[in-house]
């Protein structure tokens, strides 16, 4: 394409969409730009998702594909709906009174809202790590063993021991806690507690891990450890992370989605979002030019 054509083409797509009273959907933008939507297989597929809290609409007609075994970051200003949308993927919004979700969300081509879909196994397949570390008031060992025991993933005590060790190893915590597995999980430092929560999430062999600002309560060193862990985990799991730290999104994710006032404005390779985003709203947000 000649100089400026790519940008001009994008602008025309966005202007057309906006003129139609709609936010440009990323698929339209990306296909217009001639780039593949995803290089990887799709793990989660959301189509025309709308979320309402009573009368208030929090998510507006969002469609996105989440690639397998890669980290997708959701960024955007407070109240833009990124956490609400994240919670759609394991139906955590079902627990909120007055919350209504419309549209289609497919996990490996299975509709997560289908009547036959049981929410307990769904949440085992789509684990979640929250902003504040929330270990159970139990021992480190029991924090990890609880889920596998509930889901019948270990046939014997030896199996369970192995699963606990493997999960703690994958979470990079084993060497720090192997001599005190009976100690309370709440006695660990904030960063260790968060890694314990990640170990707890991966102990039940999820396919997807949702992370809602997992480092916002951690210091820079603990944050770096969790980020390093996320980078290692993406070899096995599909990860979606909501973060307010754009530098964190740039460091850990391969794709980034920008949300604004309930709409998905743009999704693309992280590198592109942080060097040459297609939409002026994304540019304004990442460069700190919001009024």
């Amino acid at each position, binding site marked *: 394409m000649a100089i400026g054509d790519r940008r001009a083409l994008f602008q025309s797509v966005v202007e057309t969409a906006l003129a139609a009273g709609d936010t440009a959907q990323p698929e339209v933008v990306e296909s217009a730009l001639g780039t593949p939507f995803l290089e990887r297989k799709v793990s989660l597929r959301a189509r025309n998702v709308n979320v309402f809290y009573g009368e208030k609409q929090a998510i507006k007609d969002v469609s996105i594909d989440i690639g397998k075994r890669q980290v997708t970051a959701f960024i955007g200003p407070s109240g833009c709906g990124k956490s609400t949308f994240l919670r759609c993927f394991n139906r955590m919004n079902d627990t909120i009174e007055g919350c209504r979700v419309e549209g289609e969300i497919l996990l490996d081509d299975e509709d997560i809202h289908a009547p036959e879909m049981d929410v307990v196994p769904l949440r085992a397949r789509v684990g979640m790590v929250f902003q504040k570390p929330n270990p159970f008031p139990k021992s480190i060992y029991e924090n990890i063993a609880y889920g596998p025991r509930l889901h019948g993933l270990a046939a014997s005590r030896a199996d369970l021991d192995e699963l606990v060790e493997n999960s703690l190893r994958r979470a990079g915590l084993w060497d720090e806690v192997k001599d005190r597995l009976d100690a309370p999980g709440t006695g660990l430092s904030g960063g260790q507690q968060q890694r314990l929560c990640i170990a707890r999430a991966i102990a039940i062999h999820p396919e997807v891990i949702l992370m809602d600002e997992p480092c916002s309560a951690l210091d820079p060193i603990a944050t770096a450890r969790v980020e390093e862990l996320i980078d290692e985990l993406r070899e096995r799991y599909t990860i979606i992370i909501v973060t307010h730290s754009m530098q964190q999104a740039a460091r850990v994710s391969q794709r980034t989605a920008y949300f604004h006032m309930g709409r998905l404005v743009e999704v693309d390779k992280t590198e592109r979002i942080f060097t040459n985003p297609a939409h002026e709203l994304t540019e304004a947000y990442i460069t700190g*030019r919001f009024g």
Partner: protein
Amino acid sequence: MYGTLSNGHILSGFDKDMRKLRKRVLKMGGMVRDQMERLQLALGHDSTEQARQVIEGDRPIDSQEVKVDSFIVSLLARRAPVGRDLRYVVATSRIVTELERLGDEMTQIARVLCQEPLPEAGCDGHSPRAEVQRLMGHLIVLLDTALRVYEEDDARQAEVMVADELPEQIDLRDRLKYLVECVFDNRQDVAEAVNFMLVLRSLDRGKRHIDNIAEHVIYLVTGEDVRHQ
């Protein structure tokens, strides 16, 4: 809730830093332009004194390059720019290098002039000195345009610059061939021919550095890297 776009950053210090960076680069561009004007005078008045001033004037340009580079490193570390800001800083860093090299080419021409002034009359009946003066004038206009497109983020004009060719083509091979013929026919002094060639080569390289500035401005504004196309 944030809903409106703003011209400036939320952190006004960031805007101040970016303005400072642009100002420093434009100052450096002005210093290089002064060198070119001084060379014009040196050519016009056959003045080795003016040429010597050009050689001395290279050092302040070098130290301005170091100052701007150091400011860029500090800006990257403190502000962690992304998006257009990142492109601006990266492109500016490249532009600074182009300006420094353009300054070096002017110094190279000045060194030649100090050694042996260009002859008024050449073997082809045209004046090498007048030809170099004319080309230098053209380069000054090009540099002015390049600095203006940088100052105003004018990608459209930068594209015109990149696509355009010098009306007076500096074709080194043709020139060399002709000069060699003149030397063999004893119509041209060898030393004069070599000096003329060196000056033409520096002008050609200078023009390339100015073209590169326009390419960096295109990247800065549009995100398209048009180098080597």
